[in-house]
């Protein structure tokens, strides 16, 4: 089977864009990706489009052209973008198609997500009593992790501090002003141990990636950014997930650990070979826990990693080089694809003020979400 390459990338800036629908932000990203790849819309053979709350992606053919192409909508929670990308990859790997697209966009109202219990097979009382809240899970998971592995609040602050500093140099990011560490630490608590700077916000944005077979990519004359692995997994026994009225006493693994291990196996490399990583940071604790769940360090080592700056742009493993979800917000359908967009930018050396030095050759992305799903990609140049 031939490698699948990413030959075009486009992004609509994340954040709040009043007056522009989520779908139109997706269209914006597609046009940019087409221009980047140097191909026109009718030459795409297929698309997988993802959106959680901003309408049916395939309606964008109205704006982009009625070429009659195959267009499949994907809705898979926080793994929506990753699922679209996985599907697009398989469509090319199978030999069925040579060139196509994965696109994702979203536009969420302000404030935390208000999920309904019935959508997650939970009783109504769970939502009525005030448990149907993602921030409670993230906070409780981090609180336990900090207790078990000696992670301090200062480390949480360092993660947020890094996010906003990196985002200063990312034109597509939402919150692009540095926030001093003491301001982050002293801000009002939202859900302990997290202050308001340590949570990402649901937002808006769109991302498009054009994928091609290696043969097609060579014809286009693009640098060969290979998608070496794209995995999506659900939870194993004993995991601790969003919207859990109870969890097992015997603790188990996580969807992330499975997706990550499978991605490394597919790519034939290990965590130590990765030059830059985008890890799901719905809040500052998630980035810390996901460093270990994705195999980059052992539980508890994050405290030293952050104090030593190892995940900074110039560190041994730069993490969330565009500020991640903390600085970009989380439009669900677009968020996972933003991570891949950022990695293509890094592997091409186009990162400007946020460029990872020393010519990175490998890049890793990871998303996690309700009700216990994770998607991972590994790119190589």
């Amino acid at each position: 089977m031939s490698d699948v390459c990413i030959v075009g990338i486009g992004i609509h800036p994340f954040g709040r864009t009043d007056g522009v629908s989520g779908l139109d932000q997706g269209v914006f990203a597609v046009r940019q990706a087409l221009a980047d790849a140097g191909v026109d819309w009718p030459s795409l053979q297929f698309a997988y489009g993802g959106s959680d709350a901003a309408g049916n992606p395939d309606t964008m053919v109205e704006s982009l052209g009625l070429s009659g192409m195959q267009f499949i909508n994907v809705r898979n929670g926080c793994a929506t973008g990753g699922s679209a990308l996985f599907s697009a990859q398989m469509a090319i790997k199978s030999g069925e198609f040579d060139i196509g697209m994965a696109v994702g966009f979203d536009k969420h109202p302000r404030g935390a997500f208000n999920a309904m219990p019935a959508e997650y097979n939970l009783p109504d009382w769970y939502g009525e009593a005030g448990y149907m809240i993602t921030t409670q899970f993230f906070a409780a998971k981090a609180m336990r992790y900090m207790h078990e592995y000696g992670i301090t609040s200062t480390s949480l602050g360092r993660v947020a501090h890094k996010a906003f500093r990196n985002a200063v140099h990312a034109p597509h990011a939402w919150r692009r002003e540095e926030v001093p560490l003491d301001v982050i630490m002293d801000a009002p608590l939202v859900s302990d141990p997290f202050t308001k700077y340590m949570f990402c916000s649901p937002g808006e944005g769109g991302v498009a990636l054009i994928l091609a077979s290696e043969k097609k990519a060579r014809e286009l004359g693009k640098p060969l950014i290979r998608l070496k692995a794209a995995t999506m997994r659900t939870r194993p026994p004993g995991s601790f997930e969003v919207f859990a009225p109870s969890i097992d006493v015997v603790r188990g693994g996580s969807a992330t650990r499975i997706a990550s291990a499978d991605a490394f196996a597919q790519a034939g490399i290990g965590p130590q070979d990765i030059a830059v990583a985008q890890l799901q940071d719905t809040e500052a604790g998630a980035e810390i826990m996901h460093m270990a769940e994705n195999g980059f360090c052992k539980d508890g080592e994050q405290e030293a990693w952050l104090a030593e700056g190892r995940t900074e742009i110039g560190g041994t493993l730069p993490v969330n080089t565009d500020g991640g979800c903390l600085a970009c917000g989380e439009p669900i359908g677009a968020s996972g694809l933003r991570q891949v967009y950022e990695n293509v930018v890094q592997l091409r050396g186009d990162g400007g003020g946020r460029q990872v030095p020393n010519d990175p050759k490998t890049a890793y992305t990871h998303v996690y979400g309700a009700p216990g799903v994770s998607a991972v990609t590994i790119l190589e140049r």
Partner: protein
Amino acid sequence: MHAIAEGLFTEETPPRLVGGRHRQTGRIVFPCPAGSDYEPYPLRRQGTLWSFTIQRYRPKSPPYAGSDSFEPWPVAYVELPDETIVESRLANVAFDAITIGMPLELIQIPFERSGAEPVLVHAFQPISQPSGQPTGVSA
């Protein structure tokens, strides 16, 4: 005052939470799922704090049915040994006195609803507290 949902508590005094025990694997969960895979399984009333946070903003309605006025409350996961770890409010404890590992016991507390009568919900309180005073969350 009745409970927020039927089948959540046992009928005894003091009541226990009704979990579910998987008929094949023995796995215990809370609440008891509908259907025939799980049988109702009353959970022990005492456990220890596994983790917690403080809910410091009013959740969105729907689905939240609480009163329009809002006071932060602690949300916990309480480990019931050999059974399961249940999600619950904490009551009768100051926020800064909450520590992982502290012994807790089940109580019922009133839950003020917007435009409806209050109902009883489950909560855990420190075991050293005198019981029988379901006065709600104190900060």
